[in-house]
């Protein structure tokens, strides 16, 4: 076989998969040794290789959380700017959202990688820590008004110097976060993954030589850009617009608008968010790195097979939306950006592009992580606990198929915790975990369904949650209907409490016996519901997904008293609805 020292297409491909393999092995090493279940079960981490001078993404692991697609290169850029004379064995830790971050819980480790005594490129990883201090256990504040209330903020700090852990810096970190002793394990996992990256990258360079690999990195970037451009060629030139809404910021009642205009010309897309709402007082601001990352990951959802490499970002021009809540500056609180606001941005991208390439797209998904934290004293162990919980919701319908039920957030790829484990570890009892009937948006291909659950507390606790789509359901596309909204209802001493901000609240004080009930949104419908095959509506009614009355109202499908489709009435109903819609 060809084993030359020149860069032919085959060697290029082999080096590309070699770089990818290195990142995958880092992902694996990280998740297998991490302590935090958010990382081990939730897969809430990412690993990659970043450019020596520009910090640009060279390769990123396949198993990382999607929201980190674009953020770590900005983190690395901030480390490059701060680092003076990096040395082998140094590792920087940083979580500052304004310096290329997300929320404070995402802690990044960035390490200069040296080969034969020369800085080659940077290795970096991100892991979501279960707590980072601040007002709310778990970090998802609904009411913070400045970042200091959200937790400990770390600028790029050299935690390891020439391979030696700086215990003094570590002690500052551990003194400012909850359940601190377990974080030592996560720090070791961050470091172990970077060490795997170093070992594997060294052997790749041993095999192919620095020059050839450098040449390949340059070439791979330009080819990735070419690949993204060939995908973008599917989109006709023109301007595509959309508008999506965050319920509120947790402080002020008004909705926040994401207003997006995408212009396709010269083979590139230009994203303009400048018409969006101004910065908000509560924690629903987004830092620019997260805003950009949301756009990148939305495009990767549309074209999943483009590689993870800075080249794919090149034909995607993002105007900096200064003066909006999507470009937060210090000290704006941002704890909702990574989990919620980012999803509204992806929703805007999808919604705008449906008109351009309907066959590749889909209606909006539930679009909320459904994050909830319950904290208190566990009477069985006598210890404080923090139960972090999230669920999925419905996905949107698409040209061919209905949306999936209880899919995970657009930005994540996390498995929810089993109820049996939660009940073992925390003083709670689940009363229900069900499919939320009639939560899907109607359409020729309907959305998937959300989830309905109820948690009864065994003892007093504080409950906080940051969700979204409580005011407006996920929109449909191509004539499809929106899905049902997110609902939170708390049964407190027999009284029903509905949070004023619907999907967000913080430190709601509850007693043993109180019940928290949540219903997550379904997915939007795709296409005209009147075009849905009556047999599919009949099947859905049979499964109890919706009632016969709802089938009549949403789909114009009527049933005989025996439960069969009433063909005649269905036809006349559909005609009548159709006419009504046209008027």
């Amino acid at each position, binding site marked *: 076989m060809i084993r030359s020292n020149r860069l032919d297409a*085959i060697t290029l491909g082999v080096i590309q998969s070699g770089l990818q393999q290195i990142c995958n092995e880092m992902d694996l090493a990280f998740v297998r040794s991490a302590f935090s279940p958010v990382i*081990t079960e939730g897969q809430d981490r990412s690993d990659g290789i970043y450019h020596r001078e520009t910090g640009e993404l060279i390769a990123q692991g396949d198993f990382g959380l999607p929201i980190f697609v674009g953020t770590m290169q900005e983190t690395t850029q901030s480390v490059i700017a701060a680092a003076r004379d990096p040395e082998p064995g140094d590792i920087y830790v940083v979580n500052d959202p304004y310096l290329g971050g997300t929320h404070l819980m995402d802690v990044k480790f960035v390490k200069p990688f040296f080969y034969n005594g020369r800085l080659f490129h940077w290795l970096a990883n991100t892991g979501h820590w279960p707590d980072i201090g601040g007002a709310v256990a778990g970090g998802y504040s609904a009411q913070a008004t400045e970042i200091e209330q959200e937790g400990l903020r770390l600028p790029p700090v050299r935690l390891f110097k020439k391979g030696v852990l700086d215990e003094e810096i570590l002690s500052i970190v551990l003194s400012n976060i909850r359940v601190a002793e377990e974080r030592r394990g996560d720090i070791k996992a961050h470091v*172990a993954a970077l060490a795997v990256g170093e070992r594997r990258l060294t052997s790749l360079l041993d095999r192919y030589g620095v020059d050839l690999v450098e040449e390949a990195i340059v070439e791979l970037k330009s080819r990735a850009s070419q690949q993204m451009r060939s995908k973008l060629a599917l989109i006709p030139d023109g301007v595509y617009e959309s508008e999506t809404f965050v319920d509120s910021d947790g402080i002020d009642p008004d909705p926040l608008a994401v207003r997006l205009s995408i212009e396709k010309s010269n083979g590139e897309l230009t994203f303009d968010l400048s018409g969006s709402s101004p910065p908000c007082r509560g924690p629903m601001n987004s830092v620019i790195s997260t805003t950009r990352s949301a756009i990148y990951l939305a495009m990767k959802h549309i074209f999943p097979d483009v590689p993870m490499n800075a080249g794919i970002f090149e034909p995607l021009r993002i105007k900096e939306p200064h003066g909006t809540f999507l470009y937060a500056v210090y000290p704006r609180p941002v704890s909702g950006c990574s989990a919620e606001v980012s999803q509204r941005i992806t929703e805007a991208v999808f919604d705008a592009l449906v008109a351009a390439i309907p066959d590749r797209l889909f209606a909006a998904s539930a679009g909320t992580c459904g994050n909830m934290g319950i904290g208190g004293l566990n009477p069985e162990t006598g210890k404080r606990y923090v139960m972090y919980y999230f669920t999925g919701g419905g996905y949107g319908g698409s040209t061919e198929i209905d949306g999936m039920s209880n899919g995970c957030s657009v930005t994540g790829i996390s498995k929810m915790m089993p109820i049996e484990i939660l009940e073992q570890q925390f003083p709670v009892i689940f009363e229900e975990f069900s499919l939320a009937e009639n939560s899907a948006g109607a359409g020729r291909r309907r959305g998937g369904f959300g989830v309905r659950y109820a948690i009864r507390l065994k003892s007093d606790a504080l409950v906080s949650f940051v969700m979204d789509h409580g005011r407006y359901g996920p929109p449909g596309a191509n004539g499809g209907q929106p899905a049902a909204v997110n609902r939170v209802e708390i049964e407190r001493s027999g009284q029903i409490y509905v949070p004023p901000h619907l999907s967000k609240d913080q430190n709601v004080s509850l007693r043993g016996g109180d019940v928290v009930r949540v219903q997550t949104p379904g997915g939007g419908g795709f296409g005209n519901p009147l075009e849905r095959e009556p047999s599919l509506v009949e099947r859905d009614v049979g499964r109890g997904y919706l009632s016969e009355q709802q089938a009549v109202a949403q789909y114009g499908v009527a049933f005989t008293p025996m439960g069969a489709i009433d063909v005649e009435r269905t036809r006349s109903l559909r005609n009548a609805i159709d006419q009504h819609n046209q008027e």
Partner: protein
Amino acid sequence: MTSIQWKSEILMKIVGCDVGGTFTDLIFVQSGASAPTLVKVPTTPDNQAFGVMRALTEAGSDARGLDLFIHGTTVTTNALLERKIARCGLITTKGFRDILELGRRTRPSAYGMIAKFEPLISRECRIEVEERIDAAGNTLRPLNENELKAAVQRLLQLNVESVAIHFLHSYRNPAHERRAAEIVRGMWPNPYVSVGHEIMSEFREYERGVAVSINASVQPPLDRYVNALQKALGSNKIVDDLLVMQGNGGTLSSSTVGKSAVSTVMSGPASGVIAAAYTAKAAGFPNVVTYDMGGTSTDVAVIEAGLPLISTDLEIEYAMPIHVPMVDVHTIGAGGGSIAWIDEAGLLRVGPRSAGAIPGPICFGRGGEAPTITDANLVLGRLNPEQLTGVEHPVPVSSVIERIGETIGGPLGLSAHEAATAILRVANDKMAGALRLTLLSRGYDPRDFALFPFGGAGPLHASVLARELGIPKMIVPARPGMTNALGCVVADLRQDSVTTVNAHLAKTDSASLQAIAQQQSAEGQAILARESAEIVRFSDIHTLYLQYEGQTHRLPIKIAPRDFEIAKIRHAFELAYSQRFGIAVPEGNPVVVTLHTAVIGHRKKIDLKSLSHSRQSPSSSSLSSSRRVWFDQGWCDTPIYRRDHLGIGATLQGPAIVEQLDCTIVIEPGQDVRVDDFGNLIVELNETTQEEAARVQ
């Protein structure tokens, strides 16, 4: 059932028969006969029994009055993957009937929001009854028996054939499930009642729910198949009863196997691994990685100290976890039929699309037009165009060359032969990477193992992979294409049970662990003792699964019989942890999650030497011809050996090709080959290539 006497002194007749996707393989071993009879016939997918009976016919008139018939079948796997399953109902805890449909919040792939998932049991057939037990095993709400009976009536009205009972926390306190099972079995018209804790007594409601619904779904089709086959075998006076392979690598009799139908899913790959373990151990290789490469995919498994690794968290497809003990087989999406193509960036890719059996590779002449790994092997002289297994209308090699030149060579500016080498290089690189990740994710270093290739295409690629991964030795069994059938012949009987412990190691005592192990062992032995096959002796494998408090991944720690000393367990866990993850966690608090006991009922050993090829001494007659074959160095005039002419003790050196009916073996230049006493080819990387590999690591 009366036990069949082991007639070791007189004539013994054993048949192992494995039904694969393409071929049904059979091995007939007779004590006293010089060589076993090997049969390969096409699989009959609509009713696998036809192929089995045809294989028996071809095995000859001696293959009657068998002492044992051991069968590997894909009936349950296919039923599941093609959703040709029984109509099932679910009876479950009030408030939780949708657990099976909601799964555990993910999506099939990280990118792409168009996704599909269908539960095994449709929503209208999932019925809730009032009952609730908490995590400590306390009854919060008693079982409402009237509701239960109404639920059974409702399911019968819905024409449900098979029913699953699944209550929350039944692993902790199975009282409600037991009582419900008693009532349902009293009312149900057939034996198809599957109960959660009986199938899997571990926490995680989704995984246990899936396990019990898989069992309910495949029990009726398995039962029907086994009964029909048994009848056919009996009426043809072949054998009265049969043993069925399970995914844990053991066998159970037809009468028992239906109850744990879920454990026969994945039995195909497991039997191959069992044969590999048996063969490699006899040849002196206790630690091997198996590499079973077929047309569309490749199965990889790890054998450590002669035992296949067992996993309790395999996933058959998206959101279909099987958390019952199975041989830990990892499937890589690359096989001989994987298609080569050029992506938008102008880079050559191989897979994941496969040409499958139809239309298949270009060279199969079934209409395939896309170049595959098999086509590249053919063009490069690695495969003999005259010996393509099961190909009736081969396409001339020149046409294959032309096609590869057009589709791959042209766009890349390469000649057709260069394009073919590029396909192999990319494919081997991809497979080596996947193999590495598989081993690393299980905490192993490839260099500590020997490679054991089998399946039609395994031995074609293995020597390159061994070199890429720094694997020092490779063992190619006598019959690579018959490995699964051999697995049936050599498999022992086996019964697994898993008990949830869920306690801090520091607060556990060895006596209580010992007591659980003893009970598991006694129950397993009692089940196996009812089997018809003669058991020479029993042995137990105890494995404790531990994790640090707050973590979620468990590590298995093997425990020697009756040696549950807490300090030793702690030490072994700490050692295993630091070996696996490269870090120590002295501040961690170990928790014993589960205790897993496998009871093995050992059968009499089969002499593998009878499987080897004829015993001629090495001579030039084994060299059948030579042809031009492409290696890294370029075209080499390469000797072609016939496997059945290579006698015990024969040696040869690469480059070489060894051909036999069921596969082709490629020996890279510089590799040394020796035929061992069992007819295995032992291939060693020479020192320079090993050094090269070490450098690569």
